[in-house]
């Protein structure tokens, strides 16, 4: 942050000493180009004020209203509010989401709500049991297939696993087959 920005921020917060304010004014007037134009105008206007009959409040309001719309500092403030509103929306959304995830167990039957854990668990259990009944019976009917894999293996392969004494015989069987 430039020194001039620090001074301007302090100026905005009414924290400048008279010496610092004079320093700020000097720095602003020494600047060339369009940078800080409105601040230059502000300080020039206050300088003019001492020479003319224009009411101080009028000059102040006029310049400050321009500053609020156009200067970088005012823009920064608008952005800060925008970010704040975004953050607030996110907090609200998360809060809403959190609230909907309540710790509860209930049943709504015939439009009437029952906050009864036992009933809720019972109803859920009944529904799940009924729903998965066809799957359960299908799986049971698939059980015999489990042993089918072993049954389909040739006998000489199956015996080698059980007893090493058969291995010799099995190998010889394999050789004779080959």
């Amino acid at each position, binding site marked *: 942050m430039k020194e001039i920005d620090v001074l301007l921020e302090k100026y905005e917060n009414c924290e400048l000493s008279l010496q610092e304010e004079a320093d700020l004014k000097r720095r602003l007037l020494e600047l060339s180009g369009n940078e800080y134009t409105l601040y230059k105008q502000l300080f020039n206007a206050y300088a003019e004020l001492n020479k003319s009959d224009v009411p101080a409040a009028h000059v102040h309001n006029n310049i400050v209203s321009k500053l609020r719309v156009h200067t970088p500092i005012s823009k920064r403030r608008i952005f800060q509010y*925008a970010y704040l509103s*975004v953050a607030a929306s996110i907090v609200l959304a998360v809060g809403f989401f959190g609230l909907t995830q309540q*710790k509860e*167990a209930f049943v*709504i039957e015939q439009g009437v709500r029952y906050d009864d*854990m036992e009933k809720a*668990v019972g109803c859920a259990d009944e529904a799940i049991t009924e729903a998965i009944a066809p799957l359960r019976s299908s799986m049971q009917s698939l059980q015999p297939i489990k042993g089918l894999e072993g049954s389909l293996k040739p006998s000489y392969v199956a015996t080698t696993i059980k007893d090493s004494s058969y291995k010799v015989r099995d190998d010889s069987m394999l050789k004779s087959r080959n």
Partner: protein
Amino acid sequence: MGNKKKLIIVSIFLVSNFLLYAQTLSAVFDKYSEKKEFRYVSISKDMINLASLFGKEDAGNSQMLSRIDGMKVLTLKAPRKSPTAHGFFVDIEKAITSENPFETLMEARDNGVFTRVLNRQTKNNKTDVVIVSKSDSVQHFIWLNGTISAQELQNMIKK
């Protein structure tokens, strides 16, 4: 358009998008939960844990239950071909085929009951599991959310 307005519109869009992600299934439960023909059950994570503590489930099932974040059940006691059931199934179909659609894990038909189990991955490695069961007298729509594997589901069904 001012930057402030743009930012606010973008933030509203982002927030609504975030909420809509979880709303498609919830919308079905919200729509039917208070209808008189339906029975609606909702059990939160803590209550599932409590139930598994007091229940008679074996260790494997209790372990799986502890990883369920929530459970919702809608039951309609009406024939499958009734207009209410038809509308209900149309809404379910829309919800499960919407953004981030479900995949069918298992389906079976036995004694006039047709059941489909579907799942999908959600954010933070969570899984949504739905069970849709249709029969001539009672229809069920069950939604489980948590870290549930297909193998665990299979084990639960076998027991």
